[in-house]
């Protein structure tokens, strides 16, 4: 018998990818470390493209250096370029930290970056040299999210060291917006706990206008906090998929920073999906309550209350609608759970991420209530485009790259995640917690109302 769901062909090539490359993820994390300049070890084009992409989303200066390989470098190795690059970055920026990401080019020729760093340090013994963090991020392994988590792990693994016990709570918040990070910090401040959010690019990628130009923008997780991560009372990690593919293929012992700290420094780790929706946000606030012994501050409890109030008022606009969700795996996963919470059925959830565990995770989070939902890893946009007509979606939720499909179908698209380069203010969008959920809920409701209003033959002013 023929299967009810049309078999989807798997293609060799990728048509309109739903993922970016891993050095971009590394660069994001480096931007979240105080006083850090990223340097990409490879062709100058990688630094230029990644800067270009990050800048168009965040609308902030993003300085990323490159060791600028030539044909000769690919033959004789990158040692000389590496040293010149570091010298020049030190001269121009005097950074506290230099984050080095490898590329497909440097990895293919087998550059040993830890060795290059060691040799550089030996050569400059006695000088005040920056802290070096290195992430192995060949773009032929996984996506930008694998690069992101790999870099979080390597920063923690290379910096954290045991010292006096501390009350610090480590929060590894994953790939969220600068506004989201500021909100987490506000929550922690209101709880009155000591904490580290890493990576914290809430200022470096969304700074106020300056009176005097800052070569290295202020903000970022202080190195001291990352060092102190080993002595923290607990870690919280957002995301349950993270960098599963790459970490499995490398068969590392620990996949993530939280796991590594738990294993090597006995810091208990709580992993949870990105807190989108009331239930998921409750888990986050409850965890903070448990760790700190402090009840959720009234201010946030009231934000939760208003969100419930909004769900009550808005359910009639959203219930039973059909959504297509795409983007980073952990973002997609939490978004599907949130849509489930407000009564929107996700008909297709997809990501270019390669963990192959998105379906399992979604089933777990939605109690297996959507057996017909198409969930795809290794997905590209053209595959969505080919399937979408039959799925009859009411709304698209994801980054700007899916716009062309929504445009063809003349359906609304609510932009979340990265990259958003056809709308203003991506860096200020909230996605998580009660506040982020409220913002998302309002945007989704309004997108659906606007669509209905525009397509109504009579036109109406009241809702």
């Amino acid at each position, binding site marked *: 018998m023929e299967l009810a769901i049309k078999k989807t062909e798997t293609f060799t090539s990728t048509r309109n990818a739903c993922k970016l490359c891993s050095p971009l993820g590394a660069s994001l994390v480096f931007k979240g470390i105080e006083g850090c300049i990223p340097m990409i070890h490879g062709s100058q084009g990688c630094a230029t493209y990644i800067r270009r992409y990050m800048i168009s989303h965040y609308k902030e200066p993003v300085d990323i250096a490159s060791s600028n390989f030539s044909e000769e470098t690919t033959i004789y190795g990158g040692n000389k370029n590496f040293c010149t690059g570091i010298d020049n970055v030190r001269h121009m920026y005097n950074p506290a930290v230099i984050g080095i990401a490898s590329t497909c080019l440097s990895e293919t020729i087998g550059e040993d970056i830890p060795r290059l760093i060691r040799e550089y340090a030996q050569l400059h013994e006695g000088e005040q040299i920056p802290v070096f963090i290195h992430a192995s991020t060949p773009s032929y392994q996984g996506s930008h999210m694998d690069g992101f988590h790999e870099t979080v792990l390597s920063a923690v693994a290379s910096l954290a060291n045991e010292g006096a016990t501390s009350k610090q709570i480590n929060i590894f918040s994953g790939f969220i917006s600068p506004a989201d990070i500021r909100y987490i910090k506000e929550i922690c401040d209101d709880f009155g706990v000591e904490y580290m959010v890493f990576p914290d690019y809430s200022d470096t990628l969304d700074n106020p206008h300056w009176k005097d*130009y800052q070569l290295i923008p202020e903000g970022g997780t202080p190195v001291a906090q990352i060092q102190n991560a080993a002595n923290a009372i607990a870690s919280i990690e957002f995301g349950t998929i993270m960098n599963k593919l790459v970490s499995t293929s490398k068969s590392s012992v620990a996949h993530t920073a939280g796991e590594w700290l738990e294993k090597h420094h006995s810091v208990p780790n709580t992993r949870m999906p990105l807190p989108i929706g009331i239930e998921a946000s409750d888990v986050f606030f409850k965890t903070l309550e448990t760790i700190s012994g402090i009840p959720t501050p009234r201010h946030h409890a009231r934000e939760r209350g208003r969100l419930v109030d909004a769900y009550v008022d808005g359910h009639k606009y959203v219930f039973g609608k059909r959504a297509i969700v795409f983007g980073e795996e952990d973002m997609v996963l939490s978004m599907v759970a949130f849509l489930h919470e407000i009564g929107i059925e996700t008909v297709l959830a997809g990501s270019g991420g390669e963990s192959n565990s998105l379906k399992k995770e979604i089933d777990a989070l939605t109690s297996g209530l959507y057996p017909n939902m198409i969930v795809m890893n290794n997905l590209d946009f053209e595959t969505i485009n080919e399937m979408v007509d039959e799925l009859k979606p009411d709304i698209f939720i994801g980054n700007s790259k899916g716009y062309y499909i929504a445009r063809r179908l003349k359906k609304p698209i609510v932009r979340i995640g990265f990259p958003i380069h056809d709308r203003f203010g991506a860096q200020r969008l909230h996605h998580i917690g009660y506040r982020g959920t409220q913002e998302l809920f309002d945007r989704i409701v309004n997108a659906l109302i606007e669509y209905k209003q525009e397509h109504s033959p009579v036109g109406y002013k009241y809702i």
Partner: protein
Amino acid sequence: MKTKVTMDPERWKAEVLTKYPSKVAKKRAKSIVVNEGDEVKQIQANIRTIPGIITQRGCTYAGCKGVVLGPTRDIINLVHGPIGCSFYAWLTRRNQTLPPTEDSPNFMMYSFSTDMQDSNIVFGGETKLKQAIREAFEIFKPKNIGIFSTCPVGLIGDDVHAVAREMKAELGINIFGFSCEGYKGVSQSAGHHIANNQIFKHVVGLNDTPVEGKFKVNLLGEYNIGGDAFELERIFEKVGITLISTFSGNSTIDSFELAHHADLNMIMCHRSINYLAEMMETKFGIPWIKVNFIGADATAKSLRKIAQYFGDAGLAAKVEEVIAEEMALVAKELESIKARTQDKTAMMFVGGSRAHHYQELFNELGMKTLSAGYEFGHRDDYEGRRVIPTIQVDADSRNIEEIHVEADPTRYKPRKTEAELKALEEQGLKFSEYEGMMTEMEKGALVIDDISHYEMEKLVEMYEPDVFCAGIKEKYCVQKMGIPLKQLHSYDYGGPYAGFEGAVNFYKDIDMIVSTSIWKMVKAPWQKESVIEAEYAL
């Protein structure tokens, strides 16, 4: 009115260089030149950016796939490599296209990649590439497929050209490869050259079906950013010039195949496309002239050059009629704007021709260009083509194939006799000539090649121009310093800026930029008050 610091440019240069390590300073000194005015000084250009210095430049692949092939709609551009390269070049240049019908092939909305994985790096990616080509053919039925090599492809030894030949034979469509690995050249310029070579070898001249038209031309180096090509197409149609093909904006491979039927090649961006013009001249006998359609006066001048070349009284009269009509509208708009832009200052660091061409538009607005430079220009783009024989060929340039071209035994046809060409030259129409940017810049202007991030900051800090022109990578850095930045790569969602209507769009956008009052709010009221308090305290 804010008072401007007017620093001696030589002093500026000396101060900026002190911050660099001495070896770097020595190297950068040759790329920063204070323009003399009458005599053009030598500038160092098209040499590798020093590692660790943050540059505007992109890679060879970006120039080949993104710039030259990107705006052509009827070819599948398949990127052979890991995913990033294809994603980053996915319609990011804002070049537009308008297929004649809904069914006309248009693959520009797509980003195709072989998405190489670990195993492809270890065992080679040719099998995957072939499979991807077959798939592309089955799904999209294109007539042309281009294969673009990214960094690892050259290293692992995949032979994209052999794969292209094999698949061309198997599928019976035109398939060709580009060895445009990112590390190959100094900048995207290397990629332009590689793209020119392959388009010439594999496309130009494939279709000998005669093309109708009295005055047949190709436009080279116009990329239809923000719809520039649409405006130029409008003007050509109005004056009765047949535009066979544009390399490459709103363009098709179909039209490239017919390009050898043109009687004149007009070059806009000299840097990215002069190779094609040279090769077409040698093989088919088509002369080329440099034109510029950025600026209303420049557009008028370029139209007159075309009329002069064809030497047809009817065309000349039509050109004058169109110029008179269009210029009347332009002048009316300019009149109301110029009062606010007059004597303001600008700087521009972009491209291989834009930093030159846009000075025309600023001149029309009465604005002064204090400093300019290219991102990937060569010495001839600064000093003029006469310096070409003296340019040193280094390892990076030697990397790029120079193809040997000979006159086509049957299709070579001189468009003008030697005597005719000489007569035209005597009347001031220069063939195969580009004077470069520096001859047209004022004495004392700073010319800076491959400006670094740091130099840009110092320029803005010390000269405070009213508008700084570059791209998105520079935009927010300059604006954080309190100076508006106009993007001349993507036009900040504006445009077109070419031709007559484009000039008016540009006047309006610059008026808006230099007249905005937002900078008054940079300081909050309490910051201003605190100064007063401090003074009282004294």
